C-alpha cells in the first residue's frame, strides 16, 4: 500500500509541478512580451470559441477577430460558435441585421421576346459586353437585354434567365444582398417589398409610337391608367407610368385597363 501511495504522490507532484511551471512561465511571458492590441479585437477574441480550428478559413481565432474588425470579415464566419457567437460579435461591432419586411429584386421590364431584336449577337453572354459593342441589342434602348449580367452577379444562384429571355428570382435562395441590382447596366432591377402588389413593368421613356414599333408590352404613356386609378396613385411622366406604392391599394383596375398589359399584379 505504501508503494501505491508514493506512486500517487509522485505522479501528482510531477503533473502539479508541470502545471505550475507552465503557468508561471506563461504569465511571466505574457507580462514581459505584452503587445498593445485593439480592445475591440480582444473583446471579440473573448467571445470566440478560441478553438483555433481554422474552420473559418482564417488563421485561428485572433486572426479572424482582427479580420472582422479591420477587413469586414463576415461576423457569421465562425462555424463553431454558430449563431450565438455571431450575435455577440454583432453586438460588439455594432452591426444589427434589421429584420424588416423582406425585399426581393423586381424586374421592371417585360420585354423579353415581346421586344424586337435589332441584330443577332454572337459572343460573351453579358449585357455590359453587348453595350460595349453597340447601344444594346433590343430595339428598346431602355429595356432588359436578357444576357444575364445580374444572374452572374448573384453569388447565391438565386436568379436565372427564363424561357422568355428575362431574369427571374428564386425567392428561397435570395438574400436581398442587392448585387444584381447594382450590376444591371440599364437599372432594370429594383427592390420591391412583398406587400407591393402592382407594378409597371416598363422603364422606357420613348414616345408611344416608338415603343409600339419595337415592343408589344411597353408603356406607351397613354395615361389611361392615370385617369382610371381611384386612388390617384399613378402618374405618367415622360411617357412612363409610375405607381406610388404608398397610395396603391392593389385594386387591379389599372391592370385591366392597360392596353399594352404593361401593369401587372403579382
Amino acid at each position, binding site marked *: 500500500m505504501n508503494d501505491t501511495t508514493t506512486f500517487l504522490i509522485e505522479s501528482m507532484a510531477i503533473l*502539479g509541478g*508541470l502545471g505550475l511551471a507552465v503557468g508561471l512561465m506563461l504569465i511571466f511571458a505574457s507580462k514581459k512580451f505584452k503587445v498593445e492590441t485593439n480592445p475591440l479585437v480582444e473583446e471579440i477574441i473573448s467571445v470566440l470559441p478560441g478553438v483555433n480550428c481554422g474552420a473559418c478559413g482564417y488563421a485561428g481565432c485572433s486572426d479572424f477577430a482582427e479580420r472582422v474588425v479591420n477587413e469586414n470579415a463576415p461576423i457569421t464566419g465562425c462555424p463553431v460558435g454558430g449563431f450565438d457567437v455571431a450575435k455577440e460579435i454583432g453586438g460588439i461591432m455594432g452591426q444589427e441585421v434589421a429584420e424588416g419586411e423582406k425585399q426581393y429584386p423586381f424586374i421592371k421590364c417585360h420585354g423579353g421576346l415581346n421586344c424586337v431584336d435589332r441584330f443577332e449577337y454572337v459572343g460573351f453572354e453579358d449585357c455590359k459586353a453587348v453595350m460595349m459593342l453597340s447601344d444594346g441589342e433590343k430595339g428598346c434602348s431602355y429595356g432588359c437585354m436578357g444576357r444575364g449580367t445580374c444572374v452572374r452577379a448573384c453569388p447565391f444562384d438565386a436568379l436565372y434567365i427564363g424561357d422568355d429571355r428575362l431574369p427571374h428570382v428564386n425567392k428561397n435562395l435570395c438574400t436581398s444582398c442587392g448585387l444584381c441590382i447594382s450590376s444591371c447596366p440599364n437599372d432594370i432591377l429594383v427592390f420591391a417589398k412583398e406587400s407591393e402588389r402592382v407594378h409597371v413593368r416598363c422603364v422606357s421613356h420613348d414616345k408611344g409610337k416608338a415603343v409600339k414599333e419595337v415592343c408589344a408590352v411597353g408603356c406607351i404613356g397613354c395615361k389611361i391608367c392615370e385617369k382610371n386609378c381611384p386612388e390617384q396613385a399613378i402618374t405618367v411622366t415622360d411617357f412612363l407610368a409610375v405607381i406610388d406604392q404608398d397610395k396603391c391599394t392593389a385594386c387591379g383596375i389599372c391592370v385591366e385597363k392597360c392596353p399594352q398589359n404593361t401593369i401587372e399584379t403579382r
Partner: protein
Amino acid sequence: MSESNKDTVVVIGKLVLISVVAALLLAITYIPTQQQLELNVIAAQKAILAELVPGADNFDPVEGPANAEGEREVLYYRAVDESGNIVAYAFFQRQQGSQSMIVVAGAVDSSFSNVLGMDVLSHEETPGLGAKITTPAFQNQFRGVPLQQLALSRSGGSIDAITGATISSQAVVNALNTKINQVKAAEA
C-alpha cells in the same frame, strides 16, 4: 500584494490544482490497467506459444544475461514434451515493418530443419495490406517450411508475399531468419 498579483496566484493555483487532480485520476486508473496489461501480454504469449507447438507440455524460458537492474530478458523458450525432451524452440522477435514494429512469434523444430509456424503478437501495419500478415492464408505458408526455403518467393523461397505489402512480408521473414540463427547459435 497587488490585486493583479493576487489574481495571478489564484489562476496558477487553480491550474496546479487541476493538474494534481488529473494526475490523481490518471494514477488511479493506471494501477489496475497496468496489471491487467501485464496479464494480457502473458496470456497472449502463452496462447500463441501453445498454438505454435501443439505437442509441447511446457515452455522453459531461456534468459539472457542480467542487465543493470538485475532483470533478465527472456531470449527464447524451449518447448518440452511430457517426458522432458526438447521438441522445439519458440521465440518472439521484434522487427521493423513498413509502418511499425511487428512482434513476430515463431517456432522451429529441435533439429533446426523446419519452421513449425509463425504468428504475429502485435503490429500496426496498414489495414488491408500489411495487416494481412495476421491472416491464416499468410501464416499457414510458414508451417513446416524447410529452413532453406524460408524466404520470399521472389528471392527464391517458398513464401508468397502479400500483394502490395512486400515490406511487411519481408519483415516477418527476416525476423524469423534472424531469430532462428540466434537460437541456433545459442543452442550450439
